[in-house]
């Protein structure tokens, strides 16, 4: 087993589609919370093969998209400080802040480097002892343990020139916030498979207890189809529980070592979500013991108040209130070449997925 091609069988896909058609009677809206699901759904054309009664909404699960302009502006301001090398994942490079993007600053000569892993950022810190290396940490629970590890590792190696601008976010509070906003009907959640690999299935229990079925799904086409089938069955039968479709990597308690690592380095903190605003305890801050690694404390930069792009509906799209093509800028003033909002620039943003692969 290689754990890839097995989950892409066209004949089985047909069977799943038939099954879904058989069990689907009610008109339902399912939200895929995760941006990687959004891309997989668009790339495989899953919307086209579902019965019309089933609508798939895209949620706030693109970490790049939900990063507030204020936070991007701060990362750019820190990168411009003398002696700084700003490191971050490739995903963040092109995202526009209020006035600029990291890619544009890099073109201006600011030392901004893309890394594939926080291990690589540590390597840069080690090789540049006279520079201050800052890692701009975005992402959800899948990614944040790897950032926590980099801080533990920096301490172990005695690296004094490494710090992190912590802007991670935590998924379940955002799901609950969306439900309590009540702007959009959500009959079931396709829960993020890789976030859940870390956090497990237990954090979704309160959501299921409110009557919203949750299925933690994998990312291959058959995984997604099966997750949709499982949700449809729950809804049609009037049930609501948390099921794990992606059982090959998700355990109910998640990855306990990763959770302990997170807890060792970070505490929960309020976080600013683009389109939603501040959600209590939906992000991370460094614990006191690790204050020396906190770029928020070591850099005092002044940033002007953030500016939002005119006419951009990213916020509503992230909340599932609008589909990308319902934004008046979509495909006209806002395209992947000239993106106005982050949902168009991030490769897993809903707008980019809709634009690139069609509805």
């Amino acid at each position, binding site marked *: 087993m290689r754990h*890839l091609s097995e989950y892409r069988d*066209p004949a089985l896909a047909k069977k799943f589609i038939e099954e879904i058609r058989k069990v689907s009677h009610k008109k339902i809206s399912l939200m895929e919370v995760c941006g990687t699901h959004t891309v997989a759904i668009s790339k495989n054309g899953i919307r*086209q*093969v579902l019965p019309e009664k089933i609508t798939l909404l895209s949620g706030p699960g693109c970490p790049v998209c939900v990063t507030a302009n204020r936070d991007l502006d701060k990362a750019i301001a820190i990168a411009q400080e003398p002696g700084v090398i700003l490191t971050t994942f490739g995903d963040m490079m092109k995202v526009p802040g209020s006035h600029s993007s990291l890619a544009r600053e890099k073109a201006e000569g600011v030392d901004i480097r893309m890394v594939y892993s926080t291990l690589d950022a540590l390597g840069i810190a080690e090789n540049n002892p006279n520079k201050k290396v800052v890692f701009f940490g975005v992402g959800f629970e899948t990614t944040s343990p790897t950032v926590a590890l980099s801080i533990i590792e920096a301490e172990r190696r005695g690296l004094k020139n490494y710090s992190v601008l912590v802007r991670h976010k935590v998924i379940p509070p955002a799901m609950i916030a969306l439900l309590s906003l009540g702007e959009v009907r959500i009959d079931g959640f396709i829960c993020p498979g890789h976030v859940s690999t870390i956090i497990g299935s237990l954090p979704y229990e309160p959501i299921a207890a409110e009557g919203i079925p949750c299925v933690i799904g994998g990312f291959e086409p058959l995984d997604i189809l099966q997750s949709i089938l499982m949700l449809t069955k729950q809804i049609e039968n009037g049930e609501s529980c948390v099921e794990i479709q992606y059982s090959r990597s998700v355990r109910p308690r998640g990855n306990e070592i990763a959770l302990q690592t997170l807890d060792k380095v970070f505490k929960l903190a309020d976080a600013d979500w683009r389109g939603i605003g501040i959600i209590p305890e939906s992000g991370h801050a460094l614990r006191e013991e690790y204050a020396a690694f906190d770029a928020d404390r070591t850099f005092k930069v002044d940033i002007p108040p953030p500016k939002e792009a005119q006419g951009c509906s990213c916020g509503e799209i992230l909340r599932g209130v609008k589909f990308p093509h319902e934004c008046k800028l979509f495909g006209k003033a806002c395209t*992947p*070449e000239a993106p106005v909002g982050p949902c168009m620039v991030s*490769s897993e943003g809903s707008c980019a997925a809709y634009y690139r692969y069609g509805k």
Partner: protein
Amino acid sequence: MEDKILLAHGSGGKLMHDLIKQLFLKKFNNPILAKLDDMAALDLGEAKLAFTTDTYVVDPLFFPGGDIGKLAICGTVNDLAMSGAIPKYISAAFIVEEGLPFTELEGILESMAEAAREAGVAVVTGDTKVVEKGGADKLFINTAGVGIIPGDADISGSNAKPGDKVILSGTIGDHGIAVMSHREGLKFKTTLASDCAPLNQLVAEILQASKKIRCLRDPTRGGLASTLNEFADQSQVGIVIEEQLVPIKEEILGACEMLGYDPFHIANEGKLVAIVAPEDTEKLVTVMRENKYGKDATVIGEVVDEPKGKVMAKTIIGATRILDMLVGEQLPRIC
């Protein structure tokens, strides 16, 4: 448009096409350039010449399966061959950063000479400039090439017609991933080698076999998706391909999944896409498979009437999606 040139303007995708159309074409407008083929076809009365130029800035200079020198010759030869021309002469200009080891330059020239021998072309003129450290990155090579277009050849990206078939000469993504595997920061180990190869012999064989080849192009920067989109745009037709029919090595898929790349956007240096009349398709696939550079040749799709200017891909679950050009520079991503 951006107010500054970004890396993405050079990555073979949409930004570059816009730059060419909105700036270069405006300033240098003439009917030959306006065709936007990879080479210019020059009608000199007695003979038809194909003329092309290209610049090579690949980093690292040496990669599995080749180096910047082999790439320079193959790339130039292939641009000429894709017009149906027989490549003849090449110029080579070198911009060298001071400090480049002599042995490296020698090795690069040696592989240029070898590639030229294989392709049957001669490097007949050249130039060398040395710049201060930091003025260039180790070595850049600029080439120009000329070839002779046989009287009856009519190959252009604007010739595709509904009903035509799309043939791909082999697996995609090999060059881009092989080069990336040696790049700082992304280091991964692979036995994968660049597919960098001169394709003029293969082209000569298929042109011999059929007079109904409409378009030929080597899907380099921007990958297969960009080449197909160029054909769809230039010919004002739609193109539908079946994802499952496109040959991709497992290593390429692995690297792409890991880094968040789309194999359809990864560069190739030894592959060609041919759009051909349906009746000659089978014959051409057979001919291609007999050449070592075309042994995995296969039909991947066809040309349709609508939607004009767009490329669609049939996915494994039987749906269709748009296959767009690469937008901007491909960056490794974790999300």
